[in-house]
């Protein structure tokens, strides 16, 4: 049984169907990249998986650890180990980054039947995780993402991921807006978190992130369906030939 099984998923926003039947299986320990041009439905897929309410699923099924994911609310999904790194992380003025994480982590731990961490243990954990993702400790006591640069926000997302230790992480356009140095170090953070115990879905427009985070599988999403799947070299080919190449190829096939 896979960690995540998406079967014939159809979803719309305000009546406009964006996903026209997605099929995807992710096993534990795997990294999948979902690539596609703008407007292909990448972020919709990420949003549907995380439980964003603006999307309506009209058909299909998503099983996560054998359970019906679509029936869970967003916080239940998070507590079950699903994590979305946002394309545009929200600024939450007035809410301290580390306290926010403590509330989140303890909610997850409570759900798992684990004891809640006290302030001292939690602080120690935070410090260890800041090192892992190379984040400056000063970001711990600032309001969540407020006044952070684009790169700092993305790094903070990976930091959240490091602290919450999800089973399945979905990175939505994590590379967008990052300069090359930030891209490198954020990718290193993700690589350090990668293990046989978890899985990652990387949603991206460009191949460059995949130079640093090597995926096991690459899927190409065009107009709301996965038109092609392959290994790492598919991403390289896409970068060379562009998405038109896949479009043409699928049209020929049809």
């Amino acid at each position: 049984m896979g960690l995540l099984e998406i079967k014939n998923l159809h979803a719309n926003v305000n009546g406009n169907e964006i996903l026209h039947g997605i099929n995807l299986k992710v096993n534990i320990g795997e990294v999948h990249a979902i690539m596609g041009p703008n407007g292909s439905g990448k972020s919709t897929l990420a949003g549907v998986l995380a439980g964003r309410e603006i999307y309506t699923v009209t058909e299909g099924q998503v099983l996560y650890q054998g359970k019906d994911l679509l029936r869970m609310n967003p916080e239940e999904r998070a507590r079950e180990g699903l994590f979305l790194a946002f394309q545009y992380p929200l600024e939450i003025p007035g809410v301290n980054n580390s306290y926010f994480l403590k509330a989140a982590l303890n909610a997850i731990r409570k759900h798992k039947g684990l004891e809640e961490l006290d302030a001292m243990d939690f602080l120690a954990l935070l410090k260890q995780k800041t090192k892992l993702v190379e984040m400056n400790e000063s970001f711990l006591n600032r309001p969540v993402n407020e006044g952070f640069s684009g790169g700092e926000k993305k790094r903070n997302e990976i930091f959240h991921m490091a602290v919450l230790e999800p089973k399945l992480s979905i990175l939505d356009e994590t590379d967008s807006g990052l300069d090359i140095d930030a891209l490198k170090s954020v990718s290193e953070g993700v690589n350090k978190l990668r293990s046989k115990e978890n899985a990652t879905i990387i949603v991206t427009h460009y191949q460059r992130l995949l130079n640093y985070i090597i995926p096991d599988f690459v899927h190409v999403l065009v107009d709301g369906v996965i038109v092609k799947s392959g290994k790492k070299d598919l991403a390289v080919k896409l970068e060379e030939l562009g998405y038109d190449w896949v479009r043409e190829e699928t049209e020929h096939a049809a």
Partner: protein
Amino acid sequence: MQTIDKNIQWYQSRFKAFELSLNGEKSKPTHAIRRDAVRCLSEIGFPTTRLEEWRFTNVSPITRIKFQPVLHYELNGIKRDDIQKYLIDNAIHAVFINGMFSSELSDIDMLPNGVAVGSLAEALKNTPEDVYPYISRLVKGGENAFTALNTAFLWDGGFLSVPKDTVIGRPIQFIFIASDSKQEYAAQPRNLIITGANSRCEVTETYIGLAQNTYFTNAVSEIVIGENSYLEHNKLQMENENAFHIGTTRILMSAAAHYISNAISFGGSLVRNDIAVVMNAEGSECTLNGLTLSTGKQVIDNHTTVDHVKPHCNSQELYKAILNGKSKGVFNGKIFVRKDAQKTDAKQTNKTLLLSDNATMNTKPQLEIFADDVKCTHGAAIGQLNDEQVFYLRSRGINLAAARDILTFAFAGDVINRITIEPLRRQVEKMIHARLDIGHAGLKEEEIFI
């Protein structure tokens, strides 16, 4: 109109009875002030919503009840334990029951030399020379019916006099307790705060209803701030849900004085806070902060006025409201910049968070500028919780109710964080906490704030 007239007659008859009980007091200058006020009350009558100043706040729930003005102190069986949780740790506590000073419950010893804290009635008796130059100067009886009513029955309230060059190391707290009673009464404290040059102090007015009875607090505070001195003035209004509260505060600032007001309103069924600052000398600075948290059918009205009379004064104002249920908020912020007041820097912000579809807010900035070299800005925003932010919190495992509460709490945070007296700030945080049920969401308050 007839019911209003009847109630004016009621207060006139109560005034006559009050006057009869005064004996020798009648010859003192304060009594001339009272008589003038009762005459004004008859002339102006209670305001109606036809008056612009009262357009959104209908006071007929107050004016249709015959409140018995409280004329004497009674302990009413209240014990220190009943009020303990409202006391600010390490503060100088002056306690008032239904507007009258309670020496039993107060704790005003160990004051720095020359500082007077306590009862206005006592001060009028013992050191009238300290009171007469100031009393009823900033709040004239005739300003409106409520100030007239307060002035007509002027007797007791909080008194604070700080001599020049004095720093009071501990915060001062005036605690106004409304006791339980079958009789509907009007508690009308008259507060007077005078600070000398180069002084510094923090004063908090706390208003609490101990039971669920209907009563009316009609408070007036007059504050005169000395040259180059600092005053932080907090008002925490926690009347019960059946109570009415009208609070009028007037502040006169001297040169280079610094005034900070934090007005927090939680309680009451109908509440009006009216605060006006006159920046009457150069180089002064004032900050007005306000936070309203209302639910049910509460009506909470905040009227503020900052009057820039002289050049080189700064004022900044941040009023926030969190409205739930069918409650109603009003904000009216006036800024006057007089012809002489060049180089004024004035800023006003009003933000409202509506937690329910049935809550309403009326906000009105009102700037009148007669000088030409000034900087004045104002802004008002009314909104709801941001769905994307709620989703962001939920996507990290925090449940919906807690996510909403955390964001609501954060909205209030920048006002609360301006209260420098830590025990008071904690108290306010706890109150909001209790109101929002964050405890139920499994979070501790200290885990939320910056």
